[in-house]
């Protein structure tokens, strides 16, 4: 198998493992809301939460990279450029993440000096990793970009999908530089930080997953390249057309001028439109090709991607995006419910689809079936929906009691957190979180075991009946 594909499998395995760390640290964070003394004194809430959100970014990023390394040799029909460097950096990347995670857990914080930012943590959400590790991540991403662009140069040709992906690499990598500076002024800090976060997850990541899903759909359903490319361009136009100025929906309350209320609210309200188009596309594909896929789990995860993206990003986002409403709901568990649903739908489902695609080829399975993947699918999606529903209830209670009625002070905050609906939401979230965890374990087992039983059966054919 191609070196790039071997590397892809390593990245996908690492992604699934860090997905596990994300799940575990999520359970820990959720536990604090129910039992405030949970691991207090050992691992405070902030550390559990930091692990949770950072491993989310890491596992998805590794999933994307695995997907790209997997499809690269097929797209260019040559061994991709610079894979030797990428292979080394894979181990650098994984080791760095492990060292950083250990630092978070064992060292936790440092004195208020630049040294702490270099060695311990930088304390900016999602990009807490100390600067030494951030340099490593930047290097990994640079080589990743080189693997894509360099292969196009070596092959002296490029497909539409790879052209989009290559161009997208530029902002993807450049935006990460925002993880480095220490900016005293919180308003300016948040202004640039949102370029990184929003223009990653609501722009460049959408383009990247769009490219990956285009490649996946070509493989799963045999859809023609021209159709998939045309669709990709439509998607890029609509996602960037709404998302670039949709960035303004993060600029309502950070000290920026109030024209952002109008601009951000308007473009953000349009963001569900391309997502609806993706739903239609998914239904079409399901109908046209349904009988002709040999990889049902991959296909179902692709459907989950389209619907999850729409529900989590579109529906849940639209509830709180208008500034008149966001003023009340901003920075509550309502945000959390939207965030979990959107990340799951838009990115996690897509990565899992690619895992099954790669698995089919790697284990040479004519057909991918069985019951394991169904259980994983149901438990994960059911658990996730239960969690976001619980968080929605908690978030609405918080918005109602802390913000709308309470006056947003500490006393109001406490009243909101102790409100029975909020507390119910926290217990319910934990319950569904456990279901989600069961789904994760089932998924991991399924990915590990799938195909081996069939392979064994081939080796020892069943006796004729």
């Amino acid at each position, binding site marked *: 198998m191609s070196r790039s594909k071997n590397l892809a499998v390593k990245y996908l395995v690492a992604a699934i493992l860090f997905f596990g760390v994300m799940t575990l640290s999520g359970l820990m964070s959720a536990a604090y809301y129910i039992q405030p003394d949970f691991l207090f004194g050992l691992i405070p809430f902030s550390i559990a939460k930091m692990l949770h959100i950072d491993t989310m970014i890491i596992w998805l990023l590794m999933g994307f990279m695995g997907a790209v390394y997997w499809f690269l040799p097929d797209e260019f029909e040559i061994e991709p450029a610079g894979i030797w460097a990428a292979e080394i950096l894979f181990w650098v990347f994984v080791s760095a993440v492990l060292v950083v995670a250990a630092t978070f857990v064992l060292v936790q914080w440092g004195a208020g000096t630049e040294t702490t930012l270099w060695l311990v943590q930088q304390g900016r959400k999602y990009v807490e990793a100390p600067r030494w590790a951030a340099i490593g991540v930047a290097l990994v991403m640079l080589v990743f970009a080189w693997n894509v662009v360099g292969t196009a140069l070596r092959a002296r040709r490029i497909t539409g999908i790879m052209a989009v992906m290559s161009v997208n690499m530029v902002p993807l990598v450049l935006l990460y530089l925002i993880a480095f500076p220490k900016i005293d002024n919180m308003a300016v800090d948040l202004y640039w930080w949102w370029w990184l976060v929003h223009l990653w997850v609501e722009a460049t990541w959408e383009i990247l997953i769009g490219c990956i899903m285009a490649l996946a759909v070509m493989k799963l359903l045999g859809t023609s390249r*021209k159709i998939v490319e045309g669709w990709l361009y439509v998607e890029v136009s609509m996602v960037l057309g709404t998302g670039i100025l949709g960035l303004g929906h993060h600029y309502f309350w950070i000290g920026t001028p109030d024209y952002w209320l109008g601009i951000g609210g308007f473009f953000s309200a349009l963001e569900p439109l391309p997502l*609806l188009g993706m739903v239609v596309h998914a*239904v079409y594909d399901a109908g*046209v090709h349904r009988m002709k896929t040999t990889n049902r789990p991959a296909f179902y995860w692709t459907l989950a991607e389209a619907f999850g993206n729409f529900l989590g990003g579109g529906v849940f986002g639209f509830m709180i995006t208008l500034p008149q*409403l966001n003023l009340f709901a901003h920075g509550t568990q309502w945000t959390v419910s939207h965030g979990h649903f959107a990340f799951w739908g838009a990115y996690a489902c897509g990565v899992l689809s690619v895992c099954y695609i790669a698995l089919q080829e790697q284990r040479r399975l004519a057909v991918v079936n069985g019951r394991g993947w169904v259980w994983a699918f149901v438990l994960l999606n059911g658990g996730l929906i239960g969690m976001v529903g619980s968080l929605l209830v908690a978030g*609405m209670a918080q918005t109602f009691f802390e913000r709308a*009625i309470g006056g947003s002070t500490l006393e109001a905050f406490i009243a909101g957190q102790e409100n029975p609906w909020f507390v119910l939401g926290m217990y319910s979230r934990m319950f569904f979180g456990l279901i989600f965890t069961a789904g994760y374990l089932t998924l991991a087992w399924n990915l590990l075991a799938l195909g081996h039983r069939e392979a064994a059966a081939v080796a020892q054919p069943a006796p004729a009946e």
Partner: protein
Amino acid sequence: MTPGVLLVTSVSLGFMVLAAGAYALLYGIGRFRNSRGLLVSAGFAYGALVLDAAGLILAAPLALEWKLLIAGSALAYLGIPPLTWRYLQHTHREEGAHP
């Protein structure tokens, strides 16, 4: 905006997009199976969207420009499924791809 109105408005906005999704889903499956029943259901889903949008436009404490945005969105949601469907059908036919 009272606290109660705040929650009702937010839920109504979310419901509008949800109804659009239901309309798109039912429209797609209905077109596929050539099922009048499903297409009528799609119509009902869009009808729910219209009622919801009308409620927002008539009663929500939002300024005029936001109500216009809601009205515009409602129209856009109407058009997206059939236009997307036509585009997909046409490109697949062009390619002589799977029937």
